[in-house]
């Protein structure tokens, strides 16, 4: 009896994998049903639904990049402190001295790649008409995931706290000043006043809500850090779960039921 057979025959192995290796038809079916991760997939799929030239694999790649971002992001959080005193220097240290500081590169390039792959996934879904009934609502969830991907990227852009970061966020968030009614330089904001006192000022408008301050400062760094590392990823995870579940319930990635 070989070592491999001994391990596969042990009680521990059998408690984890409840059936023999997926080398015959029966066990290839069973493995999809008994493995938590694999059961995201159906047991069998239409050939066109997995043809690379048809799917472009962009949805799957996006999900994989999300996982890469999570793993590298957690590693970066071990080193990075989101305060004015440390933020920039921690990134500098990641570049110059920290072992495996390349995680920052992988994190940043994966983020750029993820924005692109989300677009391409959407492009493919549109061009194959895969949003048509019965998949209308999953397309809507997909659009929400697109927005959240851009917001994840945007909030992460600030964290290195260099010139590139704060001015990109300043330019981007200046738009919020002009939000109709809710921005202090937006149309309609001056209508919102009580007895001549403006409700919407530069200390209470949509931009202030976003930045936690009148300008991009320490409060913004803290706010963006928490949005980037906790709040948005939580929502994204939930929506991804719904997105995948709906793909299954709506009868696969494409084609009418």
């Amino acid at each position: 009896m070989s070592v491999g057979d001994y391990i596969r025959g042990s009680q521990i192995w059998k408690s984890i994998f409840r059936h023999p290796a997926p080398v015959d038809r029966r066990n290839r079916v069973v493995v999809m049903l008994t493995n938590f991760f694999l059961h995201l997939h159906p047991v069998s799929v239409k050939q066109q639904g997995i043809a690379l030239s048809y799917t472009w694999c962009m949805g799957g790649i996006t999900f994989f990049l999300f996982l890469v971002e999570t793993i590298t992001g957690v590693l970066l959080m071990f080193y990075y402190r989101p305060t004015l005193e440390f933020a920039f220097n921690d990134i500098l240290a990641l570049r110059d001295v920290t072992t495996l500081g390349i995680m920052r590169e992988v994190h940043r390039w994966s983020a750029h790649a993820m924005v692109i792959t989300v677009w391409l996934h959407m492009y493919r879904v549109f061009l194959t008409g895969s949003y048509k009934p019965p998949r209308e609502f999953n397309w809507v969830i997909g659009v929400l995931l697109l927005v959240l991907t851009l917001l994840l990227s945007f909030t992460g852009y600030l964290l290195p706290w260099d010139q590139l970061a704060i001015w990109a966020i300043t330019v981007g968030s200046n738009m919020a000043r002009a939000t109709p009614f809710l921005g202090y330089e937006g149309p309609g904001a001056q209508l919102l006043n009580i007895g001549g006192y403006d409700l919407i000022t530069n200390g209470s408008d949509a931009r202030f809500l976003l930045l936690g301050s009148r300008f991009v400062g320490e409060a913004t760094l803290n706010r963006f850090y928490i949005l980037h590392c906790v709040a948005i990823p939580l929502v994204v995870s939930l929506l991804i779960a719904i997105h995948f579940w709906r793909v299954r319930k709506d009868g696969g990635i494409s084609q009418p039921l």
Partner: protein
Amino acid sequence: MTHLTHNPDLTSSVIYGLGWVYLLMFLMNAYWVRRSYALDGNCRLSLGGILGKGEQIPVAAFWAVYAGMLLMVAVTHLTGWKNPQQFSLQMPEFLKEPINRASNPVAFFIGSTTIYVLMIVLRKWWTTPTAGWILLNLSILFLALSVTDYDFRQIVGKPDNVPIVAMLYIVGFFTWLYFKKSVDNDERTAAGRPLFEQENNEKVLTWPDLVYSELICMVLLTAVLIAWGIVLQAPLEEPASAAKTPNPSKAPWYFLGLQEMLVYFDPWMAGVVLPSVILVGLMAVPYIDFNKAGNGYYTFNERKFAVSTFLFGFLPLWVAMIVLGTFLRGPNWNFFSPYEFWDVHKLELLNNINLSELFWIKGLGRPLPVVPPGATFAQQAPIILLREWLGLVGVAFYLVVLPNIMAATVFKKYYVKMGFLRYMVLANLMLMMMSLPIKMVLRWAVNLKYIVAIPEWFFNI
């Protein structure tokens, strides 16, 4: 005597790097020679009668000549990189000059829209493998030659801009693939044959057919990401300083299409209303597209309107605007040609004029109605409405009356099929999308700044 310059077009590392690019291109085209020899057959070469009736030669011979030239160019680079001063293979001035002179936002937008139209009209022609290969080669040659220009290199070589160059190739490739598969399917439908997606569409087991390709994909991607991380360092500029505003200040690259819209719209439109309309419009797509055809296969002919609209929004209005905002907008958001130095002191005359000024001053020869300082809202309103009546009527016409006119004319079929509410959503989304090109054209044609200009209420359209 060596000529010393601080901004050299050619450096040793540029020449050396390009040597490898050309070598790669040679290998790509060596493969293509083989493919062409097997598939493309012969053509008759007579050189305008010099060779008489002409000889039958394989098409692959032309590719072989081209590949051979690439190899020579590669060797020249890889052996001559130590003397950049004596190296002469670079983007010639006689090409840079006209490109620089012809470049401006008008030409850029008209160019990208023309490419979009040609892409659809010539879809049978440009989706053949040979045409795709020629386009790929031309684009790489253009990029490789352009890299020999110092100013071009400064912008395109920024670490954060590299993904955008990659994105252009990827988006281009998938657009090509879409049209190729659509042309194929549309021909099948016309001939009464089954669609490509309907052939070989048996069910297969997920293990191994899907999970193995997923595993391979993950391994390859991990390798690509690590290699990318090693080759290209993530950008880190000086520590943040609220006192030193960089010029230009740019948003992250994926928002530069929106920042470019600031040229034509106020922030409340470009930064809030139009992005919201884009997102709402995207979410509304499945509910306003009543066409049941084209679900689960590639086709153009069966979904001409939907696909053309989406492609117009994605390619000329989103991707091309990002390219414009990233590569061609410099200090003070002025336009800079691809081979132009980003001069902070470049001046551009701004003599833009509002519609109300056109109407009152130029049209009637009378001064603008003036709002007295310190006036209350109730006192302001009638004067402002009088001043801006033409623009307000125009906007109301555009968003309220025009959809109804279209319902009775060009969109009659849609209106009947969709019903009032869905049609109105579609019509308004279309009009909002077209408002950007319309404002662009108005700006270029008559220097129009705002159609409705009410700075008192931060309400400019």
